[in-house]
């Protein structure tokens, strides 16, 4: 069943703040095997002009995708999450995420399309810091595979 086009443009309330910790950044950097000192050593980060350690570029996805859960779980939208795979992901940064940030995410449905039996939902997550300044925008394309489709990946 086609998703309701009237959901395009709908925004969800901002999430409660997520506080970015140095050790969470370290844990993530270690999990991807990245020893860039900007992620691990506050002094090295400061030498690059950052006030504290910064997070790897894709770190923020854990926060933005959790926020997108509001869209995915919206019973009125009716997305079948058991059939959803991650199609595309994009980030645009005003500045890197850094330790000490308290980040909120506002999710908006940018587009809903039907293609080849699949339902495609584009979600934009605007990530702001405690001062209300923009940090990063995350665009996530979710593809709910039709019954006949084999494409895609989670």
């Amino acid at each position, binding site marked *: 069943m086609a998703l309701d086009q009237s959901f395009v443009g709908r925004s969800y309330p901002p999430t409660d703040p997520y506080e970015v910790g140095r050790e969470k950044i370290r*844990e*993530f950097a*270690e*999990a*991807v*095997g*990245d020893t*860039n000192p*900007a*992620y691990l050593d506050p002094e090295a980060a400061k030498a*690059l*002009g*950052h006030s504290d350690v*910064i997070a*790897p*570029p*894709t770190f923020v*996805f*854990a926060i933005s*995708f*959790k926020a997108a859960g509001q869209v995915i779980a919206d019973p009125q939208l009716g997305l079948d999450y058991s059939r959803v*795979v*991650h*199609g*595309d*992901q*994009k*980030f*645009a*940064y005003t*500045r*890197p995420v850094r330790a000490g940030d308290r980040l909120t995410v506002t999710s908006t449905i940018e587009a809903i399309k039907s293609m080849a039996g699949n339902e495609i939902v584009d979600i934009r997550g605007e990530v702001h810091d405690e001062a209300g300044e923009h940090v990063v925008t995350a*665009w996530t394309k979710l593809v709910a595979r039709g019954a006949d489709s*084999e494409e*895609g*990946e*989670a």
Partner: protein
Amino acid sequence: MTAKIGYDEVEVGVELPAQTFPVTRATLVQYAGASGDFNPIHWNEKFAKEVGLPDVIAHGMFTMAEAIRVVTDWTGDPAAVVEYGVRFTKPVVVPNDDQGATIEVSGKVAAKLDDNKVRVDLTVKSAGQKVLGMSRAVVQLG
């Protein structure tokens, strides 16, 4: 932001140092914990096969995280990455053995943009197949 590469030093076509990243089942468990993505297709072979996958596959976001390292290792300061996007086209299949899989990443400067920015196009492969499409970063150089 203090990229160690200067805009005037690079031309279109310049290749970034290519890298190969190993990924085993243990890597995926560690990434699941760090990222909070506990989808069983990334650690449970039985479940993965039941939903039609050949085997356990890597998190798409793990592959995305590895691919950008070719850019952040090049610039030194990861904050030089001002835009980054990918399309997940094929899964990285990770067998349950000591070898696991490898993710091979190469990149080149595809365009010089305004304000000392360049666009880097990444080629990301595993087992000889492209696993990411449209993998591009906009990078602020010095």
